[in-house]
């Protein structure tokens, strides 16, 4: 491992602020949120990976419908000092296109497919981004968007069952029939 992976957190955060103009928020012990502008996020991720934050825990998305933004969150972890960075960037909700990081983290290919399926975010450079992954034959809004109403979808696609017969009434008839039959036999 190179020496760059053992740099203190403050140094990495200082450089990130200086080079990529990020806003840093303390979340908890050993956990920071780094908010980067859209065009600086990918170089920032590359810089952090080089600095030892090489483990991508997950890439996910948050739908801020009122601000009309999607927030992409990349969670990076450093195996040497146990520090976690939540790298966040905001993209336009009306034109949700971002760039892939699958060259840096191969597994991101699947995370991006996941985010595309559930939020409709496209990742340029990931050719298989639009392939269905978990949802099969989905033909509605991406389901984790805030404007998708699962109850409405469920009512439309799986209508309430209508019972044609009155079961309790039928049971009574059957029982009465049985009693009659028994009466007949006995009689």
């Amino acid at each position, binding site marked *: 491992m190179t020496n760059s992976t053992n740099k203190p957190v403050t140094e990495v955060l200082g450089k990130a602020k200086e080079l990529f103009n990020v806003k840093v928020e303390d*979340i908890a012990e050993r956990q920071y949120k780094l908010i980067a502008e859209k065009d600086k996020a990918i170089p920032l991720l590359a810089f952090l990976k080089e600095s030892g934050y090489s483990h991508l*825990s*997950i890439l996910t998305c948050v739908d801020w419908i009122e601000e009309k933004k999607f927030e992409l969150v990349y*969670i990076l972890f450093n195996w040497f000092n146990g520090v976690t960075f939540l790298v966040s960037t905001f993209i336009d909700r009306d034109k949700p296109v971002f760039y892939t990081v699958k060259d840096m983290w191969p597994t991101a290919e699947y995370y991006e497919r996941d985010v595309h399926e559930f939020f409709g975010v496209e990742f340029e450079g990931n050719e298989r981004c639009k392939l269905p992954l978990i949802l099969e034959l989905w033909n509605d809004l991406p389901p984790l968007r805030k404007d998708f109403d*699962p109850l409405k979808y469920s009512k439309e696609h799986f209508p309430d069952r209508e019972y044609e017969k009155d079961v309790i009434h039928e049971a009574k008839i059957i029982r009465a029939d049985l009693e009659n039959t028994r009466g007949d036999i006995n009689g």
Partner: protein
Amino acid sequence: MGEVKLFFGPNHPGMHGNFSVHMYVEGDIVVKARPLPGFLHRGFEKLMERRLWYQNLALIPRICVPEPDINEACYAMAIEKIAKVEVPERAQWIRMIVLELARIANHLWSFGGIGGPLGMYTSMFWSVADRDKVLDIFEELTGARVYHMYIIPGGVRKDLPPKLEEKIMKLMDYLEQRMPEYETFILKNRILHTRLKGIAKIDTETCLQLGITGIGLRATGVPYDIRKIDPYLFYDKVEFEIPTATEGDALARISLKPKEIKQSIRIIRQALEKMPSGPVNTKIGDGNGLRIRVPKGMAYARVESTRGEYGYLVVSNGGETPYRVAVRGASYPQGLYGVEHLLPGTRIDDVPIWLDTMGVCAPEIDR
């Protein structure tokens, strides 16, 4: 011979949960593999956005069926990070005991799991019987055997019932004397040993590149354990070792399990000793009773599960329900990308062993 397409799953004794792999084979060698997840997608992340913070506790253990407690722990710890709440000391120790008991239960369960594809049913009978003893403890502690809903944001639901500590100690003694038997009769058994040695090999570089954590990574010789590197609860106050192996094959991964169980026993004993008395939960956020409000914010909490890093990203907008919860299933990297890129070259009959020993868990991938 031409290429033939074969289906692995969705139901298969070597796969725990419904998960399918489309295998393109030549002879009996897999040349191309495509994972097909989604059979167990239940929409947890969306459901959580529509339920109260506490209501979700009934939901989340179901995300990972064999090891439910890690979900509760991640969820609770992420909320506590957002609300900046200190959990009472006793509650943290109890959480550690619960997590380690769950760890033991799941490692034992996975011995049963490997019995399926190998046809070695002794391991299944033994380990399931021993796991039941752990579940007895859980039943007494929480009222439920599998889904406990015991770890809540702010602490744990209730204090330990009287005399449970002694019972846990007794169980630890029992399991400790069982472990050598597992090693002798199961791991050195020819059915398992010969069958697993040298297959489903993976190296450190691939693991790190793909983000494979847990036993899969440690079996390649890297002592990376989140409990040591990013200690949560009081893992920095107890002594334990991280067992590793260098071979990186299926046998190495299975052989680490009894060693990890021994370390868990060690942690539980220390926790029971060091645990002070005191309250076991504290109030979180604003609001009354079960209808709480968590302050605005975002936090990620991770724990070391038996399959690797398991984490929750929780986002709150200050409301009565979570704004967004994202689940990082421990087997996501190996279950999807890993299956596609590492499975080719494997023999058809080794595929279930690959999936089983890499800990691919369908419910946590599908969520």
